[in-house]
């Protein structure tokens, strides 16, 4: 079972991605911790690997950055060689191959989500062992455990883009309030055929919830 090395930066995290008809919405918190010290309270865990394909990173910051960089390179090469855009499935397959082949040396839990003109909107989860799962929505990171019930109850496959964005903001904010390793701002990215819209929700604008 891979462990963080002493001194290695973790991204105890809450990340999620939700599919709707015509696109996906990705969400993440922004806390990067090294033990109890928060080394970056505004990190961006939603990383672009191609024009309409993003990934959410959790686990070791270094490992996920390295893997995402390799995949980004390969996807750029794919476009040049094939003369057409790669699909989300191709991106997820590349992540999966790297994560599986190097499973002993990596600690990376990744969600790949995006839009392509062959399959439309897709969400793929690649957990620690390097398996790949295609799902309508998925959660990952340490904070996700606290919101499974909430998400399972509220998710509907026929939500609109704005409903998905609300759903993601509410879910991540609930996770942040219960998980010590998640915090900071909520970053949201909505990907459709027309492009990518990014939003940031600061602490003072978090959705209302009972705080005791």
């Amino acid at each position: 079972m891979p462990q963080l090395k002493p001194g290695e930066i973790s991204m105890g995290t809450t990340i999620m991605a939700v599919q709707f008809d015509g696109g996906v919405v990705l969400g993440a918190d922004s806390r990067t911790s090294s033990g109890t010290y928060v080394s970056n309270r505004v990190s961006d865990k939603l990383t672009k690997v191609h024009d309409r394909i993003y990934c959410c990173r959790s686990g070791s910051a270094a490992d996920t950055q390295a893997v995402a960089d390799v995949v980004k390179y390969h996807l750029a090469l794919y476009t040049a060689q094939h003369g057409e855009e790669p699909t989300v499935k191709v991106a997820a397959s590349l992540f999966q191959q790297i994560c599986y082949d190097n499973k002993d040396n990596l600690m990376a839990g990744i969600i790949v989500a995006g839009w392509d003109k062959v399959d439309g909107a897709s969400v793929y989860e690649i957990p620690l062992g390097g398996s790949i799962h295609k799902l309508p929505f998925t959660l990952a990171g340490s904070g996700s455990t606290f919101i499974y019930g909430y998400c399972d109850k509220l998710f509907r496959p026929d939500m609109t883009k704005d409903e998905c964005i609300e759903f993601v903001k509410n879910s991540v904010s609930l996770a942040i309030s219960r998980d010590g390793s998640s915090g900071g701002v909520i970053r949201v990215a909505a990907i459709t055929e027309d492009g990518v819209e990014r939003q940031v929700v600061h602490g003072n604008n978090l959705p209302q919830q009972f705080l005791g």
Partner: protein
Amino acid sequence: MTSIGTGYDLSVSTYSPDGRVFQVEYAQKAVDNSGTAIGLRVKDGVVLAVEKIKHSRLLVPHSNRRIMTAGKHIGIASAGWMSDTRHLVKRVREESRSYTDVYKTKVPAHIIAERLAMYVQAYTLYSSVRPFGVSTLLACTDAKGPQLFMIEPSGYYVGYRGCAVGKGKQVAKTEIEKLDLDNMTVREAVKEAARIIYSAHDDTKDKLFELELSWVCKESNDLHVHVPQDVYDDAVQYAERSLDDDDDDNEMDDDEDL
């Protein structure tokens, strides 16, 4: 007609003063001396046909196939050295498999054609190896539809709607140019391909030959397979009948002269 590059043709890593690599040209000659192979890309598939010259009546029919399958949706027919062909087909199978392992999908036609062409070209760079003496016709369907590529011993490759290699390529090319390939179906193309192979076959040079026919199309579920027996028999009948008609026409002319 044969040009000799005296002195500059001993190794593939040597240019001649007029910019030719003779070893690659000699490899092309090996192709030109082999049995004819043709490929036809039509609106709903690709047909490959090969004139398999038999050296002996003792050969088991349908053995030693000259048309081979790689990666299920790729068909390869070639003219030239059969042993080199088998090596290239093995390579195409490996490349196709490795592509699917990484990208989890069937390799597209232009990608596999390029990979094969790059491999063939690599053998024209070093004096320690010889170029492949094969011209390969690669038939493949992908999301863009049916496609046909020809890869020459130099590594040069181009997409075709119809092409021919081998001994009877001149005759075959003339016939192919007369066809309306864009509006044909594979069923029609199979018959035409058989007819063209029969007409390109020179009876005076090699008496025994076997026709090999294959296709990759909707009817075969986008898999490359040898055509079903009934389609094959139909095509052979059509080809033999066309040859007889040609002979009849010739006889008519002789009578009129009297």
